[in-house]
């Protein structure tokens, strides 16, 4: 590597560092939130002595929310698991913002493309 590109890449790396720390913090909030919701659900499972359903478990949002309103532990766990599934999406969204802050247009475009593809794939998943 030439000296000039070395200096450039050092400076670039410092900027990236700040970006990564911000993403890390937001990601941590997301992960902790989902873990707490799951743990509350598990605690309710033991307090209520079961999942709250005679058979099966909720899997559509309407069923999950009405289950939570009725204090059913399985519904709470499912909400926490769904939050966990969203954490990688959160990671991509925050990365776009971070690259934007860094004035790195190329990576704003690349990361936005990842987000669009991901949302498209998740919609496919919801419909299937």
């Amino acid at each position: 590597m030439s000296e000039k590109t070395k200096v450039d890449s050092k400076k670039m790396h410092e900027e990236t560092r700040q970006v990564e720390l911000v993403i890390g913090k937001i990601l941590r909030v997301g992960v902790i939130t989902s873990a707490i919701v799951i743990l509350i659900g598990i605690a309710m499972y033991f307090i209520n002595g079961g999942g709250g359903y005679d058979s099966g478990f909720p899997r559509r949002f309407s069923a999950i929310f009405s289950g939570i309103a009725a204090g059913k532990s399985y519904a709470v766990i499912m909400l926490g698991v769904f939050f966990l599934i969203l954490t990688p999406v959160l990671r991509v969204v925050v990365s776009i913002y971070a690259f934007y802050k860094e004035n790195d247009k190329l990576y704003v475009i690349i990361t936005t493309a990842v987000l669009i593809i991901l949302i498209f794939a998740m919609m496919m998943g919801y419909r299937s």
Partner: protein
Amino acid sequence: MNSMLLLLIMGIAAGCLGAVLGIGGGMIITPVLTIMMGMDIKYAIGASIISVIATSSGSTIAYLKDDMLNLRVAMFLEIATTVGAIMGALLVGVFSSTFLYVLFGFFLLYSTYNMIRKLMDKKGESIYTSDDKIVNKLNLASTYYDKAEQKQVDYSMKNVPGGFIMMWAAGLASGLLGIGSGAFKVIAMDTIMEMPLKPSSATSNLMMGVTAAASATVYFFNGSIKPDIAGPLAIGVLAGALIGARVMQVLKPKVIRMIFIPIILYMGVQMVLKGFGVSF
């Protein structure tokens, strides 16, 4: 209570190993749930996809904080993997899965051979630092601090198009065959692009959660994800991944490679046999 405790402990083990190697825990979790706990394969697959996401999210927190992963490499290659995964999901049934299992199985065996050669190299782990036009253009070169060797390692990489195609193929395989693609991701970065093993593993960890999120929504809404399995497992895996991401940083790259080799050998043999109709 007992089964929840068992899931929690298994989750810790799978999360720890997955975070160190940059692979999802599917290859541990699926057989344990189906063979040892007698669970329906449908729920086992749902559980393993949740553990991939938990491994990814848990370890990424630590790897971002400690500057171990390469965010640009991750996002650039993620395009290839997610596009591959969607194509795979759309093309299910078009290709013979026998052929694909054998093809990817042999690729893993070939990678095992390559990894052993790297391990046997007397000069130790080599770091690629030369200039590369595409790497410069995409600004992919980076640096990490190796806690085991107590030094800052500046690294570059090569053959970005090759890595991109490999990532696309890994995504295709995961969409078509429903297998995780963590091992292929590590191989693409470590073997094809010659990135150092530690940032390869950390970057694979970040990526595999993003790739898995799409299939996780499929499994969530079709009822493959059971709360009494996924809940305790997710908590265990998150804890395990946080531990694993700490452990990985103090391990020598050589040690990580020594754990990685038997695992891809096992996966390769398993896939080739599965292609020929033998399951275990």
